[in-house]
């Protein structure tokens, strides 16, 4: 019986001693090696933005996109750490260890998610619902917000106090997104702090290539030449027509935030804004609006006045009085 107890004791002791090398050496993380993609998710989507144009209708540009979501994990080296013992001459500190690279062994670290969007080109010939209007992109993925589109973006901004317009855009498969169009005028000179005024993305006037930065020097305000053109000799009730205004800067300094507005008894005419901004010296700027006269128009002529203002106030000397014939 005593021999049996001794054997049991020695076995237990051997077991304890065998475990001793496991606490003296352990694995730990080493240098970062790479990220590995463990899973990739893709999703088709689209983007919409205001496109710079040379005509005076806002143009919405649609692009296909693929949205990639990468689930990644960081891979590190695996190191073996050994606690230093033995040599009494060697300096000892608490936690002194030796590390040995374990080749072929890798340590998996934290996971992360990374997204990437890849452009897929114009979203051509696709149907969208924009603020309740069904519209189709052309071969270049554009929708021109002209009179036929019904979007009335320019009309919306005819209210001088309006700074932005939200468009709710829906695609039957790819879902809904919002596009905010801004109309910032005047623009102030750039500062260190980013402000709304400095954001030129999706700005209506920037898209028209118009400069509405406020000038510091007063222009020669009397040296403007203003002309107007109609695309028809007579306007017809219920049929749209185009009014083109041409302003020539005959002074020696840029104009500043030049803006025109129509005033008329006719609701279809009054309030229409014409944007000119800064016209360099010796240059000419055109702006046009397509106007839909009221179907109930009974008069022989429509009277309208195009009045101007700039950064320095009103310009009554350049007011244009229009007498537009109406077809019976």
């Amino acid at each position: 019986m005593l021999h049996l107890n001794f054997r049991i004791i020695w076995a237990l002791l051997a077991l304890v001693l065998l475990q001793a090398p496991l606490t003296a050496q352990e694995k730990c993380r080493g240098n970062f090696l790479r990220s590995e993609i463990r899973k990739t998710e893709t999703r088709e989507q689209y983007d919409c933005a205001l496109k710079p144009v040379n005509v005076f209708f806002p143009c919405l540009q649609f692009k296909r996109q693929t949205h990639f979501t990468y689930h990644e994990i960081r891979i590190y080296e695996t190191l073996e750490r050994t606690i230093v013992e033995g040599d009494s001459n060697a300096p000892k500190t608490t936690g002194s260890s030796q590390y040995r690279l374990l080749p072929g062994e890798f340590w998996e670290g934290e996971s992360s998610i990374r997204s990437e969007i890849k452009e897929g080109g114009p979203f051509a010939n696709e149907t969208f619902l924009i603020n309740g209007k069904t519209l189709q992109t052309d071969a270049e993925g554009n929708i021109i917000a002209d009179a036929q589109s019904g979007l009335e973006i320019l009309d919306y901004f005819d209210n001088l106090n309006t700074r932005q317009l939200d468009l709710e855009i829906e695609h039957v498969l790819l879902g809904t997104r919002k596009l905010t169009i801004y109309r910032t005028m005047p623009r102030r000179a750039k500062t260190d702090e980013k402000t709304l005024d400095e954001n030129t993305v999706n700005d209506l006037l920037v898209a028209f290539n118009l400069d509405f930065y406020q000038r510091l020097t007063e222009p020669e305000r009397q040296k403007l030449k203003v002309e107007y053109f109609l695309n028809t000799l007579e306007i017809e009730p219920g049929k749209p027509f185009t009014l083109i205004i041409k302003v020539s800067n005959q002074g020696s300094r840029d104009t500043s935030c030049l803006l025109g507005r129509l005033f008329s008894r006719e609701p279809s005419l009054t309030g229409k804004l014409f944007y000119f901004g800064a016209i360099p010296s010796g240059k000419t700027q055109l702006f046009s609006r397509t106007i839909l006269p009221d179907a109930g128009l009974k008069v022989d002529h429509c009277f309208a006045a195009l009045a101007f203002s700039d950064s320095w106030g009103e310009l009554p000397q350049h007011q244009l009085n229009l007498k537009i014939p109406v077809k019976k």
Partner: protein
Amino acid sequence: MRFLFYVIIPFLAGSSFLSGQTGSDASNVAKVADLFKYEQEAHKSNAREYEKNLAGMSSLRQIPGDDAQAKECLRLGKNFRLLDSSIQNGRARQVELIGLINLMGENRSLLPQEVTYINHYRQKLKDIGTEQETMQEVLKSKLRELQKYLASIPPPRSFVSTCGLKMLLLGRSDQAFYISEMPVSEAVYQALSAFRQDGQQPCAALEQTPPQGNVSIDQAEEFCQGLSRFEGFPYSLPERKELAWAERQKLVPDIAVWCRSKWSPDWEELEAQKRFGISLYTVWDPRRVLNASQESGLSGELKNAAYPQLGFLVITPVRTGRQLRLQRLQAELLDMN
């Protein structure tokens, strides 16, 4: 009698009367007596006239009709002024007569009874003078009352101007005014234009023609200036409050008409007009002749606009009607006289 008086006074003043001859004294006293009697009678006549006109004034309110009352006011006013003038002249004569009597009193050759007579005449003349003074004060007060009463008589409900515009009374008390019953016609417009340009007087009876259209607000204002010069009273384009009265009284023109008020439907539009330095003027188009689908009868229009269906009404203050009535009644009174 007055002539006799003005002959005798200088005669007595410069004659042998002053030298105190006895034979002349008696005749002078007799003449003074005659003059005194004349003054007495004149005063009695004035007093009767005075009482009669005061009685007329107290029964003024019982007279039916505004025109009749106004005419009676004018008649009484004229009578009061004539009476006042008569009393004034009488007082002047009496002062001179008293002066003469005083001169006579210095003559020691007068008999005692002659002295008594002339002293009596002097006292009576002074009494008459006091009464006349009272009468004149009352007449002034009554004239002021008459003016107030005349002003309180309601203005005529309508009148026709010299160039043939029928003007109707609208509004109440301080805010009452006259407005033309119809938009100014082509005939009246052309006639006044000719008057403005070369002073050619319009015909007495202008034919009935359609309303004048194709006028801008500036042209309408010029017409009003010409009309004011021609009529001698102020005429102008109506403002919104006057057109509101016209609408309430169902005085609705068949065409659109100009309004002098500037157009400011909301603060945003007003701000835009200020920013661009432009003003629009109100047009009232109750029958929607300019735009059938227009919601409101009021709209803003540019001052240079002109349409065949856009004309104008004219207004004039209440005093025009009152003054014209007075002029007519005064002319009638003169004809009666």
